[in-house]
């Protein structure tokens, strides 16, 4: 329990600030909705004249209208997703590499504690932080929509299906980060790795939007959990989501096996 508490305290220091930022992001974006809804017809007309590839690159290619609450929210959620991806990846690259980056490995690993216990405690602490983030996203979504929906109604169940995708989506980035950590000798700059992974896969999905087809989307959870698709169909695209689930399971298993046998080097 001591490692879990220690680790969680470290997350807690920055977590509230991050939750606040996500809240502000949603509020600010949703604040434009009433104006947008008023001139809905015109906005849709403008968008129609944009090149289709450009809209697809921004995840607006599906047939959702920016004039509806959920249609507009998918556009907001795309930005939220990007932030969540960075966070998930950051935690993934961070949580096992911390001791070796800060050179405190000798301290922790020479204590009477098994590798499994270290890994599980750290993993659960990071997961707790992600669950709290998820809660904050759900809360701020409802507040933002309630404040700015402009009296318009929306389908609550579809919104829930969309928000429920957050944990799996973040776990994908988290697991990849973890896997890369145990495959390399030392992660020096966590943030740049996290940004590269999150933006890289985002761009990959944007390219898929432009090029068309599914191939480029296979590796990107931005495709597996495309907000517009979820809102439009009211469910997750099972044929894409299983890729995410498989990647999470495999990365976690491999990371665990490798971590148990990892050599903790001196400086």
């Amino acid at each position, binding site marked *: 329990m001591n490692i879990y508490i220690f680790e969680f305290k470290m997350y807690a220091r920055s977590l509230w600030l991050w939750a606040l930022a996500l809240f502000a992001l949603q509020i600010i974006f949703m604040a434009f909705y009433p104006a947008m809804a008023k001139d809905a017809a015109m906005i849709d007309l403008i968008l129609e004249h944009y090149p289709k590839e450009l809209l697809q690159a921004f995840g607006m290619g599906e047939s959702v209208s920016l004039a509806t609450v959920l249609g507009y929210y998918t556009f907001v959620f795309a930005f939220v997703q990007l932030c969540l991806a960075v966070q998930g990846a950051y935690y993934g690259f961070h949580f096992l590499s911390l001791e070796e980056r*800060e050179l405190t490995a000798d301290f922790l690993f020479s204590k*009477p*504690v098994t590798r499994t216990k270290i890994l599980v405690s750290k993993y659960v602490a990071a997961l707790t932080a992600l669950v709290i983030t998820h809660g904050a996203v759900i809360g701020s979504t409802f507040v933002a929509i309630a404040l700015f929906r402009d009296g318009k109604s929306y389908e609550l169940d579809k919104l829930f299906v969309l928000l429920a995708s957050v944990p799996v989506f973040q776990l994908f980035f988290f697991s990849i980060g973890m896997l890369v950590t145990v495959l390399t000798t030392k992660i020096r700059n966590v943030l740049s790795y996290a940004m590269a992974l999150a933006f890289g896969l985002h761009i990959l999905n944007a390219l898929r939007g432009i090029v068309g087809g599914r191939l480029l989307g296979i590796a990107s959870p931005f495709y597996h959990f495309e907000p517009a698709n979820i809102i439009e169909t009211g469910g997750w695209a099972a044929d894409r989501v299983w890729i995410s689930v498989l990647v999470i399971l495999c990365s976690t298993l491999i990371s665990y096996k490798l971590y148990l046998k990892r*050599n903790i080097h001196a400086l």
Partner: protein
Amino acid sequence: MNVLEINQLTKFYGNARGIENVSFSVKEGEIFGFIGPNGAGKSTTIRTLLGLIYPTSGSAKIFGKDCIKYGSEVRKEIGYLPSEVFYYDKMKVIDVLKYAASFFDKDCTKRIDELSEMMELNLNRRVEDLSYGNKKKVGIVQGLLHSPKLIMLDEPTSGLDPLMQQKFFSLIEQENKNGATIFFSSHILSEVQQLCNRVAIIKAGSIVKVEDIKTLREDNYKKVTVRGEKVSAALFTMEGISELLEEPATVRFFYKGDINVIVQAISSIGIGDLLVENPTLEEIFMHYYK
């Protein structure tokens, strides 16, 4: 009883040698020195014993239990002080020590207070504000706060001023009197000489010799200096002489063997002055590294 038993321990980092077929044992209650130059494999050995790295082959037992299989169990009774100390920078010293203590099923508060008072350590400062020497003190306190039965020190005195070093040594001696076994790695021979009962000498990944520190100093070699007008190197050709050095009217050498033989040889020459000394550990050490 052996507290530590190392058997053919080998570690390769890819193709690079760490240690090769290292075997020796440390008895309960000993202060055991582990000496060798940088890169000889001292830290590799210690890190393998602690389960920080995994051996390529061979095994080691601590308190009679395999140090990898029962790693977390044997580490309950091990206190470790690494050569370079790093702690969570943003934390206060007391919080680091409390975190360290939380890994053991006993109340270490009293011991923390005693040790930090002895080492003159300020508990309320942040780790990042500490000098290297003070971080080292944190290391000493966190390594000893659970009153371990086996204390592993990896070049522990770097960064401590002479006064603190002396305090640290007396602390270690005290722990030893209270029943702790000490495993002490160093490349500074004088401190090994001061503290240890036995030493293992490691060179290029392999153990060269395990010996009583007394035997190492007294029984083997004599350092002989002979002065006189008629003295020349050509007179000293008998077996057991090494490192023969000739200067004007002076000959120096190391001698190993029956002391009577060399005394007779010298008495037949007619010399001006004679000096027979025990070599310093440094000199013995250099001998092993030739």
